[in-house]
């Protein structure tokens, strides 16, 4: 079973103080550590697991500058066989444009399954995978937490909200967006990454793909990025127990929890 897995390099922001860039539409990335998007990491592991049980190949694809080859080498170290980087140059990208670029490259490849992460941890859009599926004319499912190939079909599990999963059968070839927790991504050692440097990695400039100007025009635009209201330490709630309790209940309800 040949699997294509789309990955993205994103800045790790868990404990980082984000600074808004001068234009006000993005963030300063200098001090941030770049890594593979968490969801994509699970997608790569899933692709490699499928290869290990079913045979076949895994191809990892990313769109980005040469630094983003790190995530491809990581995917190769995990067990992918080939990697493709599409260099977008200075082009502005949104989910729509990314899906068009990916579709153009993937359309000429051999595959039974395309995997992406549910979303990327930078723009948190979660649209590229399913747009790509529609562009390629593939069956699709989002937020997948289980894949079991069964001949021309795959039995899949989709995580719904509120502790419920949906099991269904889907025709191959298919595109699935992979949810975190579907597997336990293997550890990738530094040496493993260095050794993966020997595997095939192709670079394709986006200009070579012959995409129309319309396909390369973003459909959405970030006008402004802004910080949520700042908090410094806990806001202490004083008073007797009863009034404190009333205040707490109010806060909990305000945060969207019904009690």
């Amino acid at each position, binding site marked *: 079973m040949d699997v294509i897995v789309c990955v993205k390099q994103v800045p790790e922001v868990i404990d*980082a103080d984000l600074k808004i860039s001068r234009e006000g539409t993005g963030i300063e990335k200098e001090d941030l550590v770049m890594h593979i998007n968490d969801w994509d990491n699970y997608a790569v592991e899933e692709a490699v697991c499928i290869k290990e049980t079913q045979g076949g190949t895994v191809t990892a694809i990313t769109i980005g500058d040469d630094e983003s080859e790190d995530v491809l080498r990581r995917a190769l170290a995990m067990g992918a066989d080939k990697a493709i980087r599409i260099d977008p140059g200075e082009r502005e990208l949104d989910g729509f444009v990314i899906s068009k670029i990916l579709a153009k490259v993937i359309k000429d490849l051999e595959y039974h399954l395309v995997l992406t992460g549910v979303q990327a941890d930078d723009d948190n859009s979660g649209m590229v995978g399913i747009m790509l599926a529609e562009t390629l004319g593939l069956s699709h499912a989002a937020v997948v937490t289980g894949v079991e190939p069964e001949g021309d079909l795959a039995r899949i599990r989709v995580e719904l909200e509120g502790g419920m999963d949906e099991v269904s059968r889907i025709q191959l070839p298919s595109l699935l967006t992979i949810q975190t927790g579907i597997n336990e991504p293997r550890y990738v050692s*530094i*040496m*493993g990454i260095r050794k993966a440097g020997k595997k095939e990695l192709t670079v394709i400039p986006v200009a070579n793909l012959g995409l129309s100007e319309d396909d390369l025009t973003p459909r959405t635009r970030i006008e402004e990025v802004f910080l949520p209201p700042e908090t410094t330490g806990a806001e202490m709630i004083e008073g007797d127990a009863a009034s404190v309790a009333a205040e707490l209940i109010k806060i909990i309800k305000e945060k969207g929890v019904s009690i």
Partner: protein
Amino acid sequence: MVTPYRVSYWSIESVWIFYVLAALAVAVFVFGVISHVSVWSRGARRQGIGFSGQGIFNLFLDGLLGRRIFSGDVAAGTMHLLILWGFLGLFAGTVLISADYWVYHFLKGPVYIGYSICLEFFGLMLAIGLVWALIRRYLQRVTRLERRIEDLIVPVWLLVVVLSGFLVEGVRLSAQRPEWGGWSFIGHVISLFWSDPRGALSIYPYVWWSHAILSLGLVAAIPFCKLFHVLAAPLSIYMEDRPDLPMPAETVTGDEEVFSSRQMIFFDACTRCGRCVEVCPSAGAGEPFSPREFIAAVREDLLLRHHPLKGLDWFSRWSDPRKAEKPDLDPQKVWHCTTCRACLEVCPVYVATPKVIERARSRVVEDGTQVPLLLSQTLEKLYKYNNPWEASKKNRAKWSQDLEISDLTKTGEEDPLCYFVGCTTALDTRAQDLARSFARILKHAGVPFGTLGKNEPCCGDIARRVGEDGLFEEQMESCLALFGRNNIRRVVTSSPHCFHTFRNEYPTFQALRPPDEKVHFDVRHYTQVIGELVSEGSIRFEKRLNIKVTYHDPCYLGRHNRVYDEPRKVIRSIPGIELVEMSHNRANSLCCGGGGGRMWQQDLDSKIKMSEIRIREAAETGAEIVITACPLCLIMLEDARKTASLEDTLRVMDLNELVVMALGLRSEGGE
């Protein structure tokens, strides 16, 4: 008077059968030995045996005199000595009688009488030793000893060989009745059993052949049972003092063994004596780990794959066929070891389990699929942020905010004293007080120093301990580059772990580099620096502290680097203070459970934590404060103090905090 001597093969017919059997036994023996050597040759690095004076010395002390077998267990030492010397004596006797027969007939007259007496003694020693061994194992039931089938067969076999030897002698003396027979005092007593020499003569060939076959069988069996340690153990002891050459991660390919030949010899030297199990803190806390089982599993795995007979653990394979398929080498089991070195400290044959663990871990890490989640998260942080704690680099110098400490990466001083704070000390809120206290002490003593500020990297200790060798090498490179760039030649560390890594790991790796690329620097642990300041009088304690304290030896300061006295000297130099020792101290100190990467894998803890066992021992001394000299110990013991409900009676302090308190400098520590 007739000159006393013994006729070889007296009254034995078809001696050629004996020679055929002997040749067969020797062939089997040689095959067995070569099989082991062939396994050793699969080791990742073949190290020449070469001459080593220290090795010979160790061989004499630990081999012939059984230094380590005696230590802590005089009974075992005496028992082993009786068996060893008895065995060697009889072996020498056999060599001499062969030489006498084949080369030059010299065993005659008084020489023969002396020879006979000696052999009687050696035989007696061996027999007593063996009976004693069986008593210890089966009647006294010494806890650390096992009772596997092999443990019974081997000593009983040996005993039967010895006793049958005496029987042969007795029967022969009874049949021959030589006038010098009384000198062979045991044989003589046995000979009295037959009143008629003809009776003895009629059974003599049977007794002789039985003894011969049993003895030859034993020779043949040596390489296939625990007796192989008679060859492997001396080799292991002899090779102990030579450090393994580093194994750069780049040179390790997937199909090769991760263990060195030397380590494989260690495995074969193990006799399962169980001293390691007794001292292992992980086993002691009831965790599913024991150095003995681990080494056995690694050895069995190697034998299964490389030994011509596919392993030697026939009995357990016969009793459990699944074992034949896959030895019990569970990748999860490699993570329990804290690399505290307690096992190596007591191992009579110097099996370096901590190093073996590190190699075994490297195999699991390179494979990647079985790395525990907590560990892989820690390694990711180490790689991305150069520390095991936070997904950020920005807080590394935060502890020093109000202390005005110069940043050596900015000041460009010549030959500055670089205080290498270390990840845990810099980032853990409890351990930060160690750094603040040490900085205050240095300032108080007027010692100029600086730190690497925000740019301080991880020394690589954790990566090295958990087998992520590629990461370790990258971190070492960046550390060395930073030291080189800032002319740092003198380093003092908070953590014994950084200290150990700089002092022992870096030089072995640097040994592989061309001389002009080496970065030389001198590293000390802070206890050594404070000890020196106290000695030279730069620090003087005037205030009396009327408290009773105990000192916990951090493994990487004590056992790994033999720094036992400096911290104690500093404590004792404080007037009024009373230092009491815990029952486990110095070389047999008990690990807090934080080393070897365990700090970041606390889900491996069993119900009883190592740190709790240690803190209870500290409480038993009646001390008010436990002093330690390692940030990991500090955190582990501080935590254990709370979970063991000792918060009201016992405090945990770093030595720095104690010194700050004794000097009356401002401190926020301890509580």
